[in-house]
């Protein structure tokens, strides 16, 4: 094996610009050998059609705990993609059963019904940010707290525990930033908290997701065990917090980096829906991508991949594929349809996407409404990236208004 393989993830020129490797590989080497942080090799896919094909095909599974699968991160548990997580992740029929049980709660209608509460939370956070005076950091005062509040609301967790949730979430997503013992401690504390929370909801149900799942589980005789309930709550926090939080910051930064975009939205707020989709597509700093593993030979992009291969699908590279999107390199706030892959595709595609869309649209609408004069307080090239996490984002987003 070549020891000079390019290291993945690729370094980014700035927080809002994609690594040049994406375009090079899309045109020259759509199935590219790369080396991961663990030192293990994997194959990177960057074309729209290949990424979509792999994510839609269940033979590309998520069992990265297999003996010969590539390890994603330097530390042993590997965060969300590690072996431990793989053991907790249901696949095949068990996954479909879980998905349908939990999916009943995540319908678009139900998420729309949460919208007024999300809006009230967003308004409260902005009020506090404005009261603190300009400049302010939009990431820590708006982007991060909002999705945690929403997940706490979803799970029926009291407001007073929101700060603890944010802390655990940050640790459990670690790529290289925290030590293994810190990550383990956070996982354990969070696990204990959720276990007790599920018990509390069993004794005293509310109208939250956990209470509803308990009711279904009990009515249909143990459809979801205590372990599965705890795993579901944990999974929702891990999958729904940092992703949405970072996206609020990145979306706002992208729109402000070229002020004509922001002004277009101030003048025409009806564009918020398509603007959010375009921000999701255009995100140049999405993090790792999705790893998959195969146990049989499958052909992708004209290459036969042998059994035991680990592939990494780069949705963000695929989202800029000129063969799938006209003027893919331009941010077009009116783009529709916009079949970007930022929520994945196929049977595992993001179950929280209706909620994420509601949160992003609401967060943006409230910002436009309250602070139409919003502007970056630093130049876009100087925006600091969050380092060392699987989900990409901005460390800070200093703004004035």
């Amino acid at each position: 094996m070549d020891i000079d393989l390019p290291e993945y993830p690729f370094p980014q020129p700035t927080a809002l610009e994609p690594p040049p490797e994406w375009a090079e590989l899309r045109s020259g080497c759509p199935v590219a050998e790369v080396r991961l942080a663990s030192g293990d090799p994997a194959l990177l896919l960057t074309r729209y059609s290949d990424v979509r094909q792999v994510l839609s095909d269940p033979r590309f599974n998520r069992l990265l705990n297999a003996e010969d699968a590539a390890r994603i991160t330097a530390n042993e548990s590997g965060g969300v993609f590690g072996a431990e997580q793989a053991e907790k992740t249901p696949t095949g029929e068990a996954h479909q059963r879980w998905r349908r049980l939990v999916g009943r709660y995540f319908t678009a209608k139900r998420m729309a019904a949460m919208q007024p509460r999300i809006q009230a939370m967003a308004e409260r956070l902005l009020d506090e940010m404005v009261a603190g005076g300009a400049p302010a950091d939009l990431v820590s005062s708006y982007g991060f707290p909002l999705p945690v509040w929403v997940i706490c609301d979803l799970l029926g967790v009291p407001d007073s525990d929101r700060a603890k949730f944010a802390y655990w979430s940050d640790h459990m997503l670690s790529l290289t930033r925290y030590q293994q013992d810190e990550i383990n401690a956070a996982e354990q504390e969070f696990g204990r908290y959720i276990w007790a929370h599920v018990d509390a909801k069993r004794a005293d149900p509310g109208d939250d997701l956990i209470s509803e799942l308990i009711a279904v589980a009990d009515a249909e005789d143990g459809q979801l065990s205590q372990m599965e309930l705890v795993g579901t709550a944990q999974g929702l926090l891990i999958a729904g917090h940092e992703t949405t939080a970072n996206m609020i910051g990145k979306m706002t930064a992208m729109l402000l980096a070229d002020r004509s975009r922001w002004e277009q939205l101030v003048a025409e707020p009806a564009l918020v829906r398509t603007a959010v989709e375009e921000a999701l597509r255009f995100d140049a700093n999405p993090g790792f991508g999705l790893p998959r593993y195969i146990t049989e030979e499958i052909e992708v992009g004209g290459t036969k991949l042998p059994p035991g291969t680990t592939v990494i699908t780069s949705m963000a590279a695929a989202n800029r594929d000129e063969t799938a999107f006209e003027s893919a390199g331009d941010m077009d706030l009116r783009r529709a349809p916009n079949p970007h892959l930022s929520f994945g595709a196929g049977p595992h595609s993001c179950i929280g996407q209706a909620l994420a869309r509601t949160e992003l649209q609401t967060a943006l609408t409230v910002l436009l409404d309250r602070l139409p004069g919003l502007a970056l307080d630093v130049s876009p090239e100087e925006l600091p990236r969050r380092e060392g996490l699987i989900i990409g984002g901005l460390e800070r987003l200093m703004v004035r208004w």
Partner: protein
Amino acid sequence: MIRVSVDRERCCGAGQCVLLAPDVFDQGEEDGIVVLLEPEPAEPLHGIVREAEAVCPTGAITTS
């Protein structure tokens, strides 16, 4: 005229279609899986239904 069909086996309940065209698509109370309300939507809805077809993450919607 367009005819819409949905494949409930493929659908993963992501709800994109309902967010876009609530008059045409709904999701089942029991499982969050797509329910087709209007197989022959009126003309003004054609654009948004085609958009739903294009963005459905599992390719569960087809129009003809």
